[in-house]
Each structure stands twice: as C-alpha cells, then as structure tokens.
C-alpha cells in the first residue's frame, strides 16, 4: 500500500514515515501544501494523510484539488483545531475521516486501514475470500484456518490483490505500490513473488486464487464472502 503523508512538523512527519514503513506501507512524505499537492496528483497512491494547518497550499484546498482531479483514494485529515466547523469542511471538501492531534499512531493506522478496506468495498478488517482469510490488523493470512507464513513483500502483494478482489491489477501498478519512487524496478520480481504466493496459499493447486491475465495483470479470483 502506498501512502502519502503531508505534514509540516518534521518530527511528526518522520515518525509517521517510520511507523507506516514498519506497518508495511510504502511512504511518500511532503513538507508543505505545494509539495503535497504535487505528490497527491502525480504519485500512484492508495491513501493520503493531510494535515489541515499547512504552509503553502492549505490542506482544505489540497483535498479539493485532488478530488477535482478525479482522484478517488481515501484521504484522512489531521486537525489540531478539532472543531466541527473544520471537520465538516474537510469532509465536505472530499476527505473521508479525521483524527485530532495529538494522536496515538495506532489510532491513525487503524483509521487508514479501515479507509483502505472501505475503498476496496470490505466492511470488516478481516478479508475473507472462500477459505483464504487475511487479517489487515494482525497482518496474518490463513487458509482453511491454517496460518500461512508470508514475507513482507508477499503479504503486501496479497493484501493489495485481496483488497480489490475481483479487479484486474497491472504488474506496473503492483511495482509502483511496493517500491519507493526511485527504486530500480524489475518486473520479474513481481512474477517471482506471485509464484511463491501461489505455492504457499495453494500447495495442491486446487484453489487457484490468483489468475494471470496475459498482458493485463493479475486478479484475485476467489469470490468475496459476505460481511459478518
């Protein structure tokens, strides 16, 4: 998952970068509204965190411009004022949720994960597709109740595919969301990782959870279970 953090306070920004990195995200950061707006419009993001009290382009304006550019990824606002006027304005501008400062990182992470889940059409933090269950909070995967050990990269790919289960996701998109902007990309890595995932999830080759659509990308093809 690729996340953008737009926050002018350096310590907070670095903390969010570090902690989201630890939580398995690819993190882009921006120091002010102008940098933030550029990143928000140009990078292939899954979610953004925007502080409302920004130098340069104000946070509210940034959100409006992102929505005007038809970007639909979820946006979480950070507000220090914590009044309803600002919350309502932010949500009307196109944000999806808010967290008041000072916050605990766990709360921000939980909100971001919930937003991602909702954006993928999932109601609960447990993504269930037939026998495959992925818990976004615990970052664990189980098949038919038996836990499956995955590496960080493997987990990230599976989470991405399962959040948007049923959709076709291109190899390029997966690469972009797994690596930082200036990382030397090698699309073979994705093929290798998908191959390993298939073996770990479906050793008997009975489920065939991940389809390959030649020239277009991959699709998690097991049907989603209805919500709890």
């Amino acid at each position: 998952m690729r996340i953008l953090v737009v926050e002018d306070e350096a310590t907070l920004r670095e903390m969010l970068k570090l902690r989201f990195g630890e939580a398995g995200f690819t993190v882009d950061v921006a120091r002010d509204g102008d940098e933030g707006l550029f990143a928000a419009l140009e990078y292939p993001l899954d979610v953004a965190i925007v502080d409302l009290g920004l130098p340069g382009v104000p946070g509210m304006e940034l959100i409006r411009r992102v929505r005007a550019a038809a970007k639909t990824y979820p946006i979480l606002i950070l507000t220090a004022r914590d009044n309803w006027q600002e919350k309502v304005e932010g949500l009307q501008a196109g944000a999806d949720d808010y967290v008041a400062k000072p916050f605990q990182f766990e709360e921000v992470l939980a909100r971001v994960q919930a937003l991602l889940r909702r954006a993928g059409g999932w109601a609960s933090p447990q993504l269930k597709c037939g026998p495959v269950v992925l818990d976004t909070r615990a970052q664990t995967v189980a098949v038919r109740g038996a836990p499956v050990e995955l590496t960080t990269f493997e987990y990230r790919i599976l989470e991405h595919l399962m959040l948007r289960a049923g959709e076709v996701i291109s190899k390029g998109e997966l690469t972009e969301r797994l690596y930082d902007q200036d990382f030397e990309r090698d699309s073979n890595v994705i093929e290798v990782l998908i191959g390993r995932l298939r073996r770990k999830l479906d050793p008997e080759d009975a489920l065939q959870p991940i389809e390959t659509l030649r020239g277009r990308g991959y699709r998690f093809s097991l049907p989603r279970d209805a919500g709890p």
Partner: protein
Amino acid sequence: MHSLSRRLLISVALPLVLFSAITMLVLDRGFRTLSERSLQELLDAEMVALIAAADPLPGGGYAPAAQALEPRLETPQSGVYAQIRSRAHAWRSPSTAGVTGDFGPPLRHGERSLTYADFDHERVAIESRAIQFEEGAAESGTYTFSVAVSLAPYEQQLWQFRRQLLGWFSGLLLALLVTLAALLRWVLAPLRRMEREIHAVEEGRSDTLGAGYPRELAGVAGNLNALLTGERKRVGRYRDTLGNLAHSLKTPLAVMRASLPADASAVTLGGEIDRMKGIIEHQLKRAAATGGALLGAAPVEVAQVAAELRGALLKVYADKDLALELAIAPGSAFIGDRGDLLEMLGNLLDNACKWCRSRVRLTASADPQAPARQRLLLTVEDDGPGIDAGDRDRVLGRGVRADENVPGHGIGLAMVRDTIELYGGALAIEASGLGGARFSVQLPGR
C-alpha cells in the same frame, strides 16, 4: 417614570396646569372687583336718587314722592329696596312688600356704612347714610337712608363667568396637551425606530441599524453600527487566535506523543499528554464559545447545520451502516453563533453515532410558549445501550471538572453542557423511544 415621553408630558403639563389655575384666580379676582365696583355705583346712584326724591311728610318723617320713585323700588321683590328711617318715623319702599329684612341699626349724623345681610333668603348689600335736613337738629331729626340691592344677579354673573373661564381653560389645556403628545410622538419617532432596529439586530433579522437618522441620533446609530461590526470582527479574530493557539500547542504534544517509546515506561507520560490535550481542548473551546446571541448574527437554520453534520458523520461512521434520521420542523432556527450550534450538535450526534447500534435521530422544533432563551427544542437520540438514571449527572460531568474526565469520553458532553449554560438553555438526558439515550436541549431560537 421609565418613558421619556411620559416624563416630558408630565414636566410640561404640571406648570401648564399651575399657570392656568393662577390665571383663572387672577381673572376671577378682577371680575369680582369689577362687579363690586358696579354694585357700589348702583348703590350710590340709588342712594342719591332716594335722597333727592325725599320730601318731608305732613305727619313728620320723609318719604320720596310716589311719582319720583324708581320703578324697581315700586315693584315688590324686585331686588332693590330702600328705607328712610328716623327715631319716630320709618318708610319702606313698596318693593319690600312681603320681604322681611333688617336694614341695620340707625346711624348717627354723618355716618355711612356698607353691610351685607339676608332678606329672607336673598343676599343683599346695604348702603346706609345718616342725614340731617336742618342744621343743628337733634338726633331725632337724623334720618338714616338705606338702599339694599340683591346680590343674586351679580353672583349669577360671577358663577357664569367662572364656568366659562373653567370651560375655556380646560379646553385650551386639553388641546395643548394633545398637541404636545402628538409633537412628542413625532419628535421621538426616530428613537422608537432605533429601538425597533436594535431589537431586529438582537433577533438577528438584520445586522446593522439603517441610515437616515436625524443629526442628533446619526452619531449614536453610526457608533452602534461600528460597535456591532467591530464586535463581530473581534469575535472572529478571537476564535482564530484560539484556534491557532490550540494548533500550536497540540502539534508539539503530538510530537511528544509520537516520540514515546512503545513500552510500559511511556504509559504515565502518555497519560499526562492526554490530560494536557484534554485541558487545552476544553478550556480553549469554552473560551471560543460566544455564549449568547452575537448581536446582528443571522438566526442559524438548524436544517442546514444538521444536513452538514449528517453528511460528515455518515462518512466518518461509514462502517456502521448508520441510519441518521433528521426530523427538523421547517423554519427551526437557533439565535446565536453558528459555530456554537455546530459544536453542540456535532458532539451530541457524534456521541450518539458512537453508541448506537444503527439508528440515530435528531429532531428540532420550536416551542413559542417556552421562555425566550429556551424556545428551540433539539433532541438527539439513539438505539444504543442508553444511560442509567443514576449515571446521567455523572455523564454530563455535573460537579466534575471537565478536564478531570477521561479524554474523549466526557469532554464533548461537558463542552455541550457549558455552552448550553452560557446561552441560558437547558439540557436533560432521558430514555429514548429508540431504546437508547435521548439528550434534549433547549436553546434560544424559534
């Protein structure tokens, strides 16, 4: 004496009445002097005529010759009477027929008198003179001539005059007062207009006083307008400052929170940071609540604020499959600051959304019978677990300092309570028909 026009009316009417009374007294005195003088002249004339007409009688004594008598002395009870009297003789005019009356004691030579007496029931003035027709005559040769004239016509005239005087003066006074009242109305009309316009500003129907006041009031109206605008700007600036203060205090707190290591040693510090956050939040928000109708602020449509909050909360609680019903009576409006209403409703609705299973309902209606500061009735209810009767005071934080509450739990409600108190409204927690808690709020509005 709380009305300017009443003060003016009384202060003008009192001297006016006093003045009229004195004038009437003076006129009355003048008239009486005049009529007394004419009475005197009449008496003198009658006396001279009587003396001139008096002839000695063969048997002694004097009497006017019958043909020389004035007609009024001949007509009985005509109101003019005469008597000529000495020790031995007495003559009375024919007009005294049927009238009993005493002309007074005889006088000595050279004496004169003017007395008043009652002839039967007729008040008369009597002039008497003592005359000796022969030089050096004895007392027996002294004749007392008396003429009596009835006062009735004069008194009648006097009373008629007084009645007329009173009539004219009352009429004049009434006309003056009516004119004065009309003038006052006209003169004070701009003041009444100002009062009306200030009232309109108070109720939020207008935001400043109009133009076109007379010169003496134009300054006051201008200053009031400047004050209103200044006050609105000041409140806005004040809020911005508080918001900035909150921002600049909370960001370092966020940094501190973020820098805590994720182990047990950080628990105390984390708690303290949360407490500081709570204090900042509560105190700054309380300071920012205007509490009271901001002069000239338009009434806030509840429907609009509710719709905005509904949109926001449906987004925030998207996971919950929330049914947020609004039942807002058309025209329901809050007289006060929009930000305050947004905070109060936002906190109450957020709270309801947090605790509900799936239903939250907001109603708004007006109660014209309620006291002025409690006319707008808002209720927020949910289908959550509700609040036990014993816990309701504690939930509202009564008797508990809000910054001692657990953050995120009580601050919102304590804030709502404080703001409602500032507005002179009322807040109560009841059981809702939906199954959970119902918060009913009464605020100034319509």
